[in-house]
């Protein structure tokens, strides 16, 4: 709507699409895809649990955040299953499958939270019984290898080139 300027390219029942829209669309999509591509490369090469463990041991991430993230990632698949069950029950009761109104979102959130909190209660009790509060993190020093040095040097060169140009 705000980028619809320039020469008209396509018309559909009175709606005119101009070159400004295409340029803006390509601009935003390429930017998003480059960010997404970099992240996908990172995510596929790294196991999430190993990532959290190394963040805790090497970078000193507090155990609170490390534990919460690890449990949260574990719960993703379980919550996804709960979400599908909620959708099924809603359809059987004659409601919408997908939330559209804010009250729909509330009706999705309440059972998800209720089920999740029930699990969280037992996870919390189990963690406490296993001595979570007394647990100390073994810190491991960051090891920089030859490959890491090459990557850092390339990044610095890239930054210098950007600043110079």
């Amino acid at each position: 709507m705000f980028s619809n300027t320039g020469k008209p390219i396509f018309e559909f029942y009175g709606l005119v699409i101009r070159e400004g829209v295409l340029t803006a669309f390509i601009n935003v999509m390429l930017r998003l895809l480059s960010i997404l591509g970099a992240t996908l490369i990172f995510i596929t090469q790294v196991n999430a649990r190993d990532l959290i463990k190394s963040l805790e041991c090497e970078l000193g991430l507090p155990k609170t955040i490390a534990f919460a993230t690890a449990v949260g990632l574990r719960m993703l698949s379980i919550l996804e299953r709960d979400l599908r069950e909620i959708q099924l029950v809603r359809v059987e009761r004659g409601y919408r499958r997908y939330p559209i109104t804010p009250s729909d979102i509330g009706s999705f959130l309440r059972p998800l939270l209720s089920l999740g909190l029930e699990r969280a209660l037992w996870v919390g009790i189990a963690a406490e019984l296993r001595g979570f509060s007394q647990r100390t993190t073994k810190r491991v020093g960051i090891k920089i290898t030859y490959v890491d040095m090459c990557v850092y040097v390339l990044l610095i060169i890239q930054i210098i080139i950007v600043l110079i140009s």
Partner: protein
Amino acid sequence: MSIPRRYTALDIAHLAVVAAIAGIIFALTWNVYFISNAVGGPIVARVISYGLWFIGAPLAATLIRKPGSAFLGEFLGALVETLIPTYGAFTNLIYGFAQGLASELAYALFKYRKYDVLQAALSGALAGFPCVVLDAVLFSEIFTPDVMVFITIAAVISGAIYGAIAALAVKNIRR
């Protein structure tokens, strides 16, 4: 009465659940944003979808009721969203950090003694400001001044609505 500050394993487990739920909501909200942006433009898109990206903070704070819970709820939700991953990728972490801090301010203003619907709505609303700033800085979403004002108002209103919904959802759960 002293404010409890120490996080127990139970609080962290609750935080994990909120992070997982928030991460899923954040990931699904991208589709809502793109559809509403295509249909209604940037202002309508922000009214409909932005509050969903701020929902982690009021959800966590209303549930856990300790200092720092709003920030952690939003930031961990963004971390889970990053690991899923979604369109925003690593920029989600920056948004989560900034929005979390802004949401935490809402509870700090009341000295961490109140975690009601008002505080939740305020926390959602305050998260709108850093979000609009980051959109301009990271994604060059800069419009004319009057449009920027409307966009900010839309983000703030959306955050307030969904913040209130999150608080009401937590309060209505039978525990």
